[in-house]
Every structure is written in structure tokens, then in C-alpha cells.
């Protein structure tokens, strides 16, 4: 790799102001509370999981926790199906049924699909864009702990008087204090508030990461498609979560502080709740599906050995779905009697949003058409997604036709629709992603035979469970009923559905067994087992702690693929390089890349919120105060803790290397990194003579500087190195 032309020498104005060497130790470690606020250093060992801010570990935590909640939500579903298998069922009381169907929906949406998508966002986005971590690593950890603690908080309600029982949609006035006098709904709303803070923070974090921390050369329209769909989904999250937060606050004020936002007798409006909820709820469903669409868009090209058909259109249709998703929420309220004008307008907007969605389906077909299809498990799940999501999408379009929806709404036909798009869509996509990226995360490939069995039994069980719901809905079976009369013709399909549900349970056990046997095997997965296209496959499996030994420069979409393959004049593939040449070797022993340091305080601060929530539910002021103090104290300490625990030996080594070093050869990238909080920008710059001045400034403890945009103007250099860790954006 040679530098083909020299960049302009840094001018005086671009040089960061050198800092006197003697000042370093103090700068590095302000000792506000000596001994108490030392920052943890360990990144291995089981205790390191509580202080980790590494996006890969956090991604794994999200993945494992969300899978656990998937099992919980699945057990809830099995109980529901047992109760409904026969008319006048006696398996569950009405009380318990209402709790279980509420928690099934709340769990699957807020505790499974959203966090499982977050697992993929967290692990993959920095890898796909060639960064070392996200923009705000401690905020990342904080979001995860809020998820875990919020989920535990919500489930603790089973022990403390009863779980939420107003449906996942919590319609007022049924959830008001008059009609739901217990604490069930309080656990629901406080739990969702806690989860919502985590999601909103995570969304902001990931958006900043994707916009600011891309590798040099990676313009927006050269980002991987999964990253693009994640960008749209996180923008939706950022704007949608505040809406449900407001709705939940209004409900909380009605329940606890005597307001009457949803009480018609006092001038409030019960329909207001539905408007706020669905204004959140509709973008929410696009949040649930777009990441899985991104995953499928990554998998299909790899296993067809062809590019994604119409990358640009796929990006823009995702953006279109994101925008248009805000203009359709009344389609959840077609039967509320809002008047023909409003109803018609939203019928039309709902039809229109089917267009970009349909375009995606056809583009996926265009991807596999003419390809060379290798039917590994990820591709099976991706193709399953396309077909099942088509069914769900088509039933969705039938809901857009208002006279038809007046029959369909609030029946099992709707339940069929959303399970086809959420299970047949999101879950199949997420499972495909698990099989696809498993080697990158865990260093081993999941067993193919078990994977195929998992796929086919899931497909069978899923269609047996939810297919009959179409018929049941059209025959007149309403939703959210704990039992039904025997003479209505619902009996057979309900029984078939219950059997299907247990088949799904069996297929999930197959998957768990697959994970079990796989984790007992040695870590033998190659860096690029699938002959894939994106940057994360350029590093070892599992990914090293620092991600990239050298941050690559990107020239086009699917940059890794284009290093391996070119096209001849007919557009056919020619291999131009072996993957081995481009896969990054790990840094040698003793090489030190400065990475963001772990921290206790995201976990500490996160504890404050459920404590506050318990205090508020039971009106025990001391508990609320402890919660607030924990939260505020945690945030204060987070803000003031040293950005790195001083390591005297390491500092000395770095200083020695600094004084011995000279300007920019690429081998520098393999030496101990010369950057970290408190080290001079001058040293950082010296290691990047091939880069350009702007990148050097990133060494300072200031806002993370993206080497990407600055580097675009450079003459093309093959893979210039940057070994900086990302300084935490604003010490966030």
C-alpha cells in the first residue's frame, strides 16, 4: 500500500497547541474524591460486564437479555393459547388472562424486538462504519441498564399485587384510576417511562455515531444498508418515544394527581389518549421492522453473490417509510367515529405507504434473481421474511380499505396481520441476523443442520399458529377476549393455532440447543466465513476489543467485497484478491489502542429510576428521594469522573515512544497508540502524516472528530492508518 501523493503539510494554524509534558499526570486524573472515583480498568472478567461501555459487550447484553424476554413472552403466549384452545376455557381466570395478554404484547414489543434490534445496532454499527465505538459509550451502557432494570421493574408487578392488565395499548378511560384502581397500570406506565428514556438516549447516541464517526471515504450513500435502515429507525425512535412519554405522563397525572385529561365529564377527551398513543405507535411499528429489513438486505446479496438490487432506491424507500409513517396513525382508529374527512385522508395515506414497502419486496426479489443462491440458514430466514412479510403486508393493505376495516378491526384478522409482520417479518429477520453474525460475535458458526431444522419448524409452527387467525377474525372472533362461546364456529381453528404455538416452542428449543452445542466448540470461525461484503468481515472472529487495527478508507458501498472482486465487461464477477490479504491482522502483544474506559456510573445512575418509580407508585417519599439522589449523584459522578484511570507505566512507555518517534510511516499504526486524554495533539498528528491535519485534533479530549468528512478531500491513499481511539464525545 503506497501513498500516491503527499498531502499538504499541516499549516501552523492547524497544529493543536502543544501541552507541556509535565502537566500530563494532573490533567489525566483530577482527584475529586480520592479512591472513590477511580475509574475501573478491567475489560475482562465477569465483573467487567457491569462496568463495560464497550459497544460489543453491550450488544451481547442486549441480545441475551432480549432472548430471555422472548422466552418469557413466549410462555405467556403458550398460556394464552392453552386458555383459548377450547371454548369456555378454564385454564386461566379472566384476571390472569388480561394480565398475560397485556404482558405478552408489552414484552414482545418493548422487551424483545426493540432491544434485539438494539443488540444488532450496538454490535454492528460501529463495525460497519469503521469506528471503534459509539459516540457516547457511557450513555450506551446507561441505556442498556435502563432496559434491564425497567424490564425487571415491570415484571416485579407480578409479585406486588398484579401485573399490568389494560392491554399493551392501555386505552383510557379503562386505565384511569376509576376503572383500574390497583397498581397494575402504574407498573406499566412507569416501566415504559424507564424503558423510553433508555431508548431515546440510545437513539441519539447511534444517530450521532452514524453521522459523525464513519470511516474516511464513507459518504452517507456508501454506508451499508443495515446502517441506513438503523439510521432511519433511530430517527423514528428519537421523535416517537417523547410522544408516548407525554401520553404516559398525562395518564400518570390523571391517576395520581387528580387531573382529568382523559375524563369527558371534566372536559377531557378519552380519544386524546388514542391519538397520542398511535402517533407514537405507528412510527413504532416501523421502528420494529426497519432493522430486520436492513438485516435481510445484508444477507440476501451475500448469499446470492450479487449486489443488493437498487441500493439507492432501498435507502430512499426506507427514508420514505420513515417520513410517511408519521402520517397514517388514524388507521388504528377508523372505527372511532372521527368523521368521514379525517377517516378518508388517512385511508389514502395508508394506501400510499404501501408503495415504498412494496418496492422493497420487489427489490429483494431482484437481488436473488439471477444470483448464485447458497441456501445457508441466514438466507432461509431472509427468504422466509420476504414471503411472510408479504402476507402480512397484504393483509395490512386490506385494512387500509375503510369499509373492510370496519369489519376487520379489533378482530383476530388484525392479530393475524401484525403477527405476520412482527414474527414472520421482524423475528425471522432477527433470527437470520443471529445466524449470519454469530461467528463475528462469538467466533463460532452455529450448526447448519440444526439451523435448517429450526427454520423449517418455525415456519411450520408460525403459519399454523397465525394463519388461522385470518379465518377466525373474518368469522367474527373479537380480540382480547379470555374465552368464547362454543356455538360460534371458532373451535377448530383455535385448537389448530394452539398446536402451532407449541410447535414454535419446540423450534425455539432447537435453537437453544444449537446455541448450547455451538458454545461448547472451540472458536474456529474464520474472519469471513460467508464471503461477505461489509467492513465487519475484515476483522477477526470474534471482533477484537479495538475493532480495527487500522481504520480503513472506504471508496464505495460494500467496500470489502470490492477489494476481493471486480466485474468484467459483461458484469460478471472476477476475483481480484484473496480475502486473507485484506483481513486485518490483530495488533501484536503489548500494542495498546486507547479505548474508552469502563465506568460504574451508568449502572449506578440507572438504578435511580426504578427506585424513584417504586417511590412514586406507593407514595413513599423517602424512596422517591433516594431514587432521585441516586440518579443525580450517578450523573454527577459520571460527569466528573476522570476520563481514564492513570496508568503510570503505560504513560511512561507512551512518552518514551513519543520522543523517539518521527513523522508518518504507516508502520506507526502498529506501535502503541500515542493518543489519549491529556496526550498532545502533536503526537497524534505525527502518526498520521498520511491523513491530514484534522484527524490529529481528535486526540484531544473534546468532541469526537470524525476523520471521515475531512479525509474526503484527500488524494486517494490506500488504507492510511488511524489508530486513535474515539475520545468520548464531550466526555459523555
Amino acid at each position, binding site marked *: 500500500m503506497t501513498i500516491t501523493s503527499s498531502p499538504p503539510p499541516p499549516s501552523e494554524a492547524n497544529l493543536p497547541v502543544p501541552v507541556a509534558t509535565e502537566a500530563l499526570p494532573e490533567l489525566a486524573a483530577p482527584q475529586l474524591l480520592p479512591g472513590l472515583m477511580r475509574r475501573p480498568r478491567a475489560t475482562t472478567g465477569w465483573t467487567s460486564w457491569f462496568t463495560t461501555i464497550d459497544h460489543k459487550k453491550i450488544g451481547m447484553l442486549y441480545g441475551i437479555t432480549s432472548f430471555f424476554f422472548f422466552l418469557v413472552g413466549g410462555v405467556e403466549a403458550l398460556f394464552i393459547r392453552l386458555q383459548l384452545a377450547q371454548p369456555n376455557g378454564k385454564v386461566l*381466570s*379472566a*384476571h390472569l388472562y*388480561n394480565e398475560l395478554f397485556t404482558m405478552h404484547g408489552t414484552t414482545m414489543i418493548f422487551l424483545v424486538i426493540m432491544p434485539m434490534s438494539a443488540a444488532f445496532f450496538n454490535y454492528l454499527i460501529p463495525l460497519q462504519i469503521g469506528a471503534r465505538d459509539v459516540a457516547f459509550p457511557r450513555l450506551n451502557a446507561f441505556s442498556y441498564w435502563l432496559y434491564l432494570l425497567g424490564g425487571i421493574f415491570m415484571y416485579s408487578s407480578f409479585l406486588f399485587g398484579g401485573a399490568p392488565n389494560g392491554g399493551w395499548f392501555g*386505552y*383510557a*378511560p*379503562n386505565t384511569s384510576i*376509576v*376503572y383500574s384502581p390497583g397498581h397494575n397500570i402504574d407498573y406499566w406506565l412507569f416501566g415504559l417511562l424507564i424503558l423510553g428514556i433508555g431508548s431515546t438516549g440510545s437513539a441519539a447516541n447511534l444517530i450521532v455515531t452514524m453521522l459523525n464517526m464513519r470511516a474516511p471515504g464513507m459518504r452517507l450513500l456508501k454506508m451499508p444498508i443495515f446502517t441506513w435502515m438503523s439510521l432511519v429507525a433511530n430517527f423514528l425512535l428519537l421523535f416517537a418515544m417523547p410522544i408516548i412519554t407525554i401520553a404516559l405522563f398525562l395518564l400518570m397525572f390523571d391517576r395520581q394527581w387528580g387531573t382529568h385529561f382523559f375524563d*369527558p*365529564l371534566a372536559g377531557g*377527551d*378519552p*380519544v386524546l389518549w388514542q391519538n397520542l398513543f398511535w402517533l407514537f405507535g405507528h412510527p413504532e411499528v416501523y421502528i420494529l421492522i426497519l432493522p430486520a429489513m436492513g438485516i435481510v438486505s445484508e444477507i440476501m446479496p451475500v448469499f*446470492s*453473490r*450479487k*449486489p443488493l*438490487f*437498487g441500493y439507492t432506491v432501498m435507502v430512499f424507500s426506507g427514508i420514505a417509510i420513515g417520513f410517511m409513517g408519521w402520517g397514517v396513525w388514524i388507521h388504528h382508529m377508523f*372505527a372511532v*367515529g372521527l368523521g*368521514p374527512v379525517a*377517516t*378518508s385522508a388517512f*385511508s*389514502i395515506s395508508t*394506501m400510499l405507504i404501501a*408503495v415504498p414497502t*412494496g*418496492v422493497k419486496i*420487489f*427489490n429483494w426479489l*431482484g437481488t436473488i434473481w*439471477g*444470483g*448464485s443462491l447458497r*441456501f445457508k440458514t441466514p438466507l432461509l430466514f431472509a*427468504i422466509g421474511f*420476504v414471503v411472510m412479510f*408479504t402476507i402480512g403486508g*397484504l393483509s395490512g393493505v*386490506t385494512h*387500509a*380499505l*375503510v*369499509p373492510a376495516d*370496519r*369489519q376487520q378491526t*379489533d378482530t383476530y384478522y388484525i392479530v393475524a396481520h401484525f403477527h405476520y409482520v412482527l414474527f414472520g417479518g421482524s423475528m425471522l429477520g432477527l433470527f437470520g441476523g443471529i445466524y449470519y453474525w454469530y461467528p463475528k460475535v462469538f467466533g463460532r458458526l452455529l450448526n447448519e443442520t440444526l439451523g435448517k431444522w429450526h427454520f423449517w419448524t418455525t415456519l411450520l409452527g408460525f403459519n399454523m399458529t397465525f394463519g388461522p387467525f385470518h379465518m377466525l377474525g373474518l368469522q*367474527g372472533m373479537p*380480540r*382480547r377476549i379470555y*374465552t*368464547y362461546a362454543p356455538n360460534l364456529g371458532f373451535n377448530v381453528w383455535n385448537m389448530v393455532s394452539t398446536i402451532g404455538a407449541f410447535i414454535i416452542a419446540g423450534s425455539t428449543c432447537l435453537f437453544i440447543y444449537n446455541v448450547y452445542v455451538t458454545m461448547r466448540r472451540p472458536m474456529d470461525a474464520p474472519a469471513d466465513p460467508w464471503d461477505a461484503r461489509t467492513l465487519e468481515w475484515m476483522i477477526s472472529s470474534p471482533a477484537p476489543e479495538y475493532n480495527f487495527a487500522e481504520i480503513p478508507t472506504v471508496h464505495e458501498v460494500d467496500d470489502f467485497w470490492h477489494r476481493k472482486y471486480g466485474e468484467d465487461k*459483461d458484469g*460478471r*464477477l*472476477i476475483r481480484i484478491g484473496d480475502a486473507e490479504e485484506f483481513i486485518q491482522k490483530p495488533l501484536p502483544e503489548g500494542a495498546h489502542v486507547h479505548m474508552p474506559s469502563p465506568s460504574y456510573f451508568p449502572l449506578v445512575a440507572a438504578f435511580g429510576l426504578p427506585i424513584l418509580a417504586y417511590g412514586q407508585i406507593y407514595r413513599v417519599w423517602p424512596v422517591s428521594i433516594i431514587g432521585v439522589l441516586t440518579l443525580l449523584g450517578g450523573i454527577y459522578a459520571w460527569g466528573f469522573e476522570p476520563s481514564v484511570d492513570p496508568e503510570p507505566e503505560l504513560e511512561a512507555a507512551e512518552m518514551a515512544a513519543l520522543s523517539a518517534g518521527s513523522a508518518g510511516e504507516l508502520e506507526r499504526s502498529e506501535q502503541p497508540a500515542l493518543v489519549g486524554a491529556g496526550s498532545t495533539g502533536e503526537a497524534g498528528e505525527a502518526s498520521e502524516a498520511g491523513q491530514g491535519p484534522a484527524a490529529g485534533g481528535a486526540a484531544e479530549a473534546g468532541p469526537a472528530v470524525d476523520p471521515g468528512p475531512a479525509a474526503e478531500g484527500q488524494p486517494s491513499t490506500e488504507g492510511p492508518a488511524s489508530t486513535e481511539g474515539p475520545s468520548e464525545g464531550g466526555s459523555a
Partner: protein
Amino acid sequence: MFWIAVAVFFLVAGIVVYCIIRFRARSEDDRPVQIHGSPRLEIGWTIVPAILLIGVGIASVSGVFHLARVPKGAPITVQAASATTPATITGDVMRVDVIAHRWWFEFDYPGLGTATDLITKQNDAIVTAGELHLPIHKNVYLTITSDEPLGSPENKSHVGGGVMHNFWIPKLAGKVYAVPGRDSHLILNADYPGTFLGQCTEFCGISHANMRMRAVAQSDTDFAAWVMNQNTASHPLASGDQFTNPQAYAGFQIFTGAGNCSGCHTVDGTQAQGRVGPNLTHLQARGVFAGAIFALNDANLRTWLRNPQKAKPGANMVIPKLTEDQITSLIAYLDTLK
């Protein structure tokens, strides 16, 4: 619309199956042509679905406005029987007020009776519960709302007002919400006589599954006969009845006394004037009770009166524990409410 969806599904599935067979990897080293996209195709499969959807959209919008119409015509009135003809009805449109409660539907027919309608507050209605009667081939214009009457266990201090319910009789019409504080509307028009089942379809609390109803569509003369019966004064048991029907008389004593049924229920012509629970004046003219979940017969009444909450979780009918003899007497009285 449904068949368009079926066609699209088979198109997509068909292409998938074709690709799976035709484009299976033949060797490890296949070199497929690297197609990046096709603007023509992409424009095509954007525009064609858009055109299809515009067509569906037109159907949808015209359907919306059609459903939102107010039917025109003279109100239904009953013509009394003459020497040669039975009672029948004239007119085109019948208005019915539907009030959804937790967990039963109230049906008031303003203009056809002598009771007080909760919505219009006028004294010329028939007030019933659970079973809606309508004449065939006529537009029945429903005004629907939700309410919890003052005095119900859930509305002791009038801070309630009801929850969201959804009114649905599948064979007669689509559904529409019952919203507290607002009126929504629905037009029913039965093509043939019969009994049509319905249910609440918006989660409204613990016994949402037990909030059902029936619509009985009748010929003109049958409907008129039903109206006439509803307007027949029920025969309040007088002191002489303790000898002709002592069991029913004892039941009436319990109904208006120890049982406190009159606190919630109305029986016209007696001191029972409660408006919390269903009007029981012509109970025996219905086939179902308790939110239309039980067939109306003595055995079911006994199960109900023993423990309403066991039969219907959360039921607001909170009554003192009755002995079997008291229940027998009550049932005998209820059997007289024809």
C-alpha cells in the same frame, strides 16, 4: 381487493420459488452477473402498485362517505291493530340509542314508548337491554355512546363516565366505537328475519369477553307486536296476588326489599326505578340476559343469582348472599315479567 392481494402473493411467492430452483448455486465458484438495479423496473414497480392503490383508495373514500350518511325518511311509528289487521309499522327510519355499559348494552327506542331515554332525556322511549329488535328492510340509525350511570359501584361520585367499547353485529354492519362523552352512529339494515349475534370488541375491562348482544330482525307485524308488548303495562303484583301466586309475591317482596334489586333495576309500574342495571320490565320477552351471555331460563337465573361475580367476573351487580328459597321466589317473580 382480496383477489388483488391473492394475486400479488402468488406473484411474489412464485418468483421466490422460481429463483430457489433456477438460481441455486451450482458450484462454489459461480460468477453471477452483478446487476446493481434497473431504473425502468424500479419505476415500473413503484407506479403500478400506486395506480392499483389509487383505485382501492377511491373505493375506500366513497365507502367512508356512504357509511357516514344520515338515512332520510319518516320515523317508524306503530299502527295499532284493527279488527281485521294486526298491528304494523309505517315509516322508513328507526332511531335507536345504544348505551354501552360495563359490561352490557342498553337499547332505548325514543318515540316508541313511555320510559325515559338516557341519551335524549325524553319520556317517550322503550328501554331494554341485551337484545336489539329491528324491523327488516328498514334503516335503523343507531346513536351510540358509553356511560356508567351515577350510583353504579364504579361511579359513586360521578367522576366516571364510562370506558371505550366497540359495537359490532358482524352480519349486519361494521363496527363503531362507543366513546364516553361523544355520540357515534351506525346504520343497520337487515335483509331477512333472524337472530344476529354481536359483541363488544374494544377491551373494556375484566369482563370484556362477556359483553355480548343479539339483534332480532323481524317482519313489520312481528316488530309491531313486540313494540305493543313493550308498551303493555306490566302487572304490578297487588296484595291479592299473595294467594294466586304466593311464590312470585314473595319474590317481589325480596326484589323491592331485602334484595335491594330496585336500587339498580327498573320494573315499570312498581317502586323499582333504579337506572344502574338493565331495565327488567319485560325481561321474559328477551332470550338472553347478563350481557347476553346466558340463555334466559330458570337454571341460568339461579346460577346467576347465587353469585353474579362467579358467573361473570367483575360484574357490578353486587347483591347480598341469597338463600336458595329466596332465589326460588325471585325467579318466580321474574317469570311474571312478560
